[in-house]
Each structure stands twice: as C-alpha cells, then as structure tokens.
C-alpha cells in the first residue's frame, strides 16, 4: 500500500478509537453531573407542603416535598395522596411556573380553597398560604436545598 495511504488509514483508525472515547467521555460527564446533583441533597425539593389539619390521611404534621408539578387527590397515583371523603380522585395540581407557585383545581366535585377562598381555574400562591381539600389543610412552605 502507498505509504501516504497507509498513514491516512492509521490516522482514521486511531481517530475512530479516539472519537469512541470522546462520545463515552461525554456520556460519563453527563452521568457524573447527574449523580453529583442527586447526591448534593437527595431531599432537595422546590417546595414543601405541611399538613396543618387533617381528618384522616395524610396525618397532621406530615411534610411532603413537592417539585415543579405535584398532583393532589385521592388517586393513589397522585404526588400527594389526600384520602378524604370530600376529595376527588384527581382534585388539584400544584405547579411552580417561572418564579411562582400556582394551584389549579381539576374540576373537582367539592372544589379547592386557598386561604378560605374558593379557587376557580388557576390561583397564585405565596409561601404560607393554605390549600384546603375536603377537611385536609396543607400549607405551602419553602423548599429545602
């Protein structure tokens, strides 16, 4: 084989191996970044819901960490399971959008209240506000971490 071609061939071969490792390094970096973020504070969450009063589940005093989207309701698939006779299966959803918290009532049978006032559609929330679903009252607090 022509010596120039032979050199090119080996350059290509070594480049192939190098590129494989570049791709792997990028994957590894993403992996590590993820692990580091998780281990920094596994309990980190955007916000917390503290159960102020309750007739059943969840028990009063329980604290739930909530992230950008949290569903509230009787359905066991909800982020926060509210087991109250007046709660619907999918009762409300708590979201963090932009820089503020909002709660949205999902056409529940008995409605959602914020600080005593009924919620129609989407309501903005501040830290310290109380959400009421049935007989369960939940207070929004700042997150940890």
């Amino acid at each position, binding site marked *: 084989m022509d010596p120039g071609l032979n050199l090119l061939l080996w350059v290509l*071969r070594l480049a192939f*191996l190098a590129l494989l490792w570049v791709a792997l390094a990028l994957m590894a970096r*993403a992996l590590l970044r993820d692990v580091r973020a998780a281990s920094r504070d596994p309990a980190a969450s955007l916000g917390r819901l503290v159960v102020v009063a309750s007739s059943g589940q969840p028990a009063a005093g329980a604290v739930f960490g909530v992230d950008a989207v949290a569903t509230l309701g009787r359905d066991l698939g909800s*982020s926060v399971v509210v087991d109250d006779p007046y709660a619907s299966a999918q009762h409300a959803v708590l979201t963090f959008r932009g820089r503020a918290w909002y709660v949205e009532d999902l056409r529940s049978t008995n409605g959602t209240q914020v600080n005593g006032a009924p919620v129609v559609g989407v309501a903005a929330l501040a830290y310290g506000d109380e959400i009421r679903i049935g007989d369960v009252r939940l207070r929004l607090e700042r997150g940890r971490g």
Partner: protein
Amino acid sequence: MTGLAADVRAPALPGFPRPRPRPRELALLAAVILALGVGSLSLGLARTGRLEPADLPGLALFAGGLLAAHALLVLAGRRVDEILLPAAALLGGIGMLVMERLPQDLVVQEIGPWTLGLGDLQLVWLGVALAVATAIAVALRSDRWLRLYKYTWAASGLVLLALTFIFGSEVNGSRLTLQIGPISGQPSELLKVILVVFFAAYLAENRILLADARVRLVGPITVPPLAYLAPIGAMLALALGIVVVQRDLGAALLFYAVFLGLLFLATGRRTDVVLGLLLFAAGFALLALFFPHVQQRIAVWLDPWADPLGDGYQLIQALHAFARGGLVGTGLGAGLPEIGGRLPIPAVHTDFPLAAIGEELGMTGVAAVLAAYLVIVGRGLRIAAAARDDFRALLAAGLALVVGVQAAIIAGGNLKLIPLTGITLPFVSYGGSSLLANAIVVGMLLALSDRGAAPLAPPRPSRLARLRRSPGGPS
C-alpha cells in the same frame, strides 16, 4: 393492596404532551454517528484502497434510524433519559461495523427477491430493535399491567421455555432456538425480560415479609419463611434445570445472578445473597459431577491447550486474536487472518464478537465497549435509585442488571475468566432475538426514567383574572 402504587400515567395538564427538545441526546448521537462514520471510512479504505465508507447505505440507514428515533422522542415530549439511546447506539454501531467487516456469507437469508447477508441482516434487526425500543419508550405509560399480573408473566415465561424444549431445534448440543416459518429466534432472550418483571413485582410485594418474618435456620443464620422461599427455590430449580435440559449455562447464570442482585436490593440481607451463592455453587458442583457437558466446559476453560485442535480450538483462537490486537488493534478489516479462506475463530459473529473487537480495535476498543455497558448499567441503576416506588426501582435495577451481567458473563467467557457460555453480547452479537430483547430492555428503562412533566411557563394573565390575590403575593 401494595401501597405506594405509583402509576406511570402523567398528570393531565393543559398543553400536554408537548414536543420537548433533547439537546444532550442529539449531541451524543451526533458524536456516536461521527465516530461510526470515521470507523466505516477506515474499514472502507482498508478494504478497497479508496477513501469511502464501507457500507454507505447501511451507515446512512443506521444514522437515519437513530435520528428518527430521536425525533420521535422529541415529539412525544416525555422527559426520559437522554444517555441510554446513544450508549446503546454506540454498541449497536460497533456491532454493525463488525458484522459488516466479517464475511457476509456467514449468515444468508432470502426474503422475497432479496438475498441478505450478515451485515444486512444485522442492520435489519437493528432497525427493528430501534423501532421497538422507541415505541416502548413513547407508549409505555402505565406499569399496572406489569406489576399486577406477575404470575401471568411467570407462567408465560415457563410456557415459552417448555415450547422451546419440546419444539426447539438443536444447535451445537443446546436446544435454544425456536423456528416459526422463516424466522428463528431464541425465546430465552425474551424469557430474561419476563423473569425480571416477575422478580421485581414479586420482591416488591413481599420484600418486607422476606426481610422481617424470618425463620431461624442454624445459629445466627435466618431465612425467609418457607412459603416465601418457595418461589425462590423454584427459581433455583429453574436455573439449574436450564443447565441440565437445555445446556444453556449462560442463561442460568444470568437469571440467578440478576435474581440475587434484586433479592439484595429488596431485603438488604447479605446473608441471603451469600446463602444463594453457596446454594448455586453446591448445585453447580453437583451438576459438574454428573453431567459430562458441564465437565467439558470447565476442562476447556481451565486448560484449552490440552485439546488444541478439538474442544479448546475456539477459545485458543480467540485468545490469540486478543493477543494480536494489542493496545490499538490491527484496524478494522486487517485482523482475523484467514487460513485457507476460513476465519480463525469459529462462530465469531455470535460467540466471540469481543475477540474480533479485541483483535481489530485493540484493548482500547474492548475497554470502550465495556465502558459503554457500564454507562447503560449506570443509567439504569440511577433510574432505579430515583424511582418513585419499590417496584419501579427493582424493575429498573433488574433491567440494568440483565444487560450488564449478560455482557459480563460473555466477556468473561471470551477472556477465559469464566467458562464459555452460549449467550450473546448485548447489542453487538449477531442475532435478532438478542437485539429485540435488549431493545425491549432499553425501551422499558427509558419509559421508567420519565421524570414527569417539566416546569411550565407562567400562565397567561387572563387566566388569573377571576382570582383574589392574597396580600404579600409571590416574590
């Protein structure tokens, strides 16, 4: 009821689903496609002396398929893992290059007017696998049917096994292949997925009982109560049974290792794992005592040079291939010297693809392949660690283990670290059933990694109109 049954179904929210860009995945896929392209160029240059990719249509189809899968995931809008697909694509691509490099007449299939060789068939299967993985990643939203029907799954797995035993065709002394018309596959590959689902569901449901309601066996050693030991005992019997009846040492080892791993995750009792290992060792020793094919495998593993032209030939040739590769290999297309027109390693495309990689891509290439498996396992375990409940955690961990342990077993066999077994190297070996089963694994892992809906944009002011704003509003 099981408690904490979290459904995969995402919350119904306005504007959902929505296409979401997946930049990290795109970047990684681009890097992988670039690497594979350069590799293909090197193979083409070595073969023809001209600077052209070895199989341009194949490469284009593979790249196109990956980008199409990526596009589908973007459109589906689910926030699933962005590293799994590129890692699997890296391995699949290396496998494709190896199959392209090998003589195409190793496997020939006629489909209609076309005659497909080794490389073409691998590409077809890769395409099908990619489609399956993407479909599962996009469509699998509820794990209810996985977790609730665990005994159905187990039963179907056993039925599959029985069918293979009764109707299967014998290849090299093992009855692993089931032939339906023109398509032949290895149901044991599918079985591993089914069993992982069963294990995860069973252990998730019973883990507290298994860990707490112990029965004292001897001194400080306790075991789970007998009723719950039954499925475990059945598993042991199944694994060893496979060895005996189907001569599939690899599958038995794989099932058992995955099971032990999941058992550890579920109960946290290290004694259980140790006992399980001891039981397996004892069972295996018994088998080695009574079954000549097990003895033969062990003898070849211990000293293949005792029978260099017979049983030990394949392994010796593989070790020579690794030796010839050295650090950077001989280059794609330049290794595997043929003697009299035949490859030095028999069945290299199914049993010893790692040896071919070792020879042509060197230790660097082998390490890259091993690293890619670690990435997949790592992501899988990460998904398990972040899972919302026990079942999903165990399922994700089990799926990750299935890929990682299988790769470790066959790589170990290729490198003479453990006896050789007949299982395939995931994503790299030739074999449709293997690719499909592993595609299902990747698809399920992607589905399990769904992080739920992302933070949405602030609502439009009109939607806030009918609202009384509380004093000291949001910052």
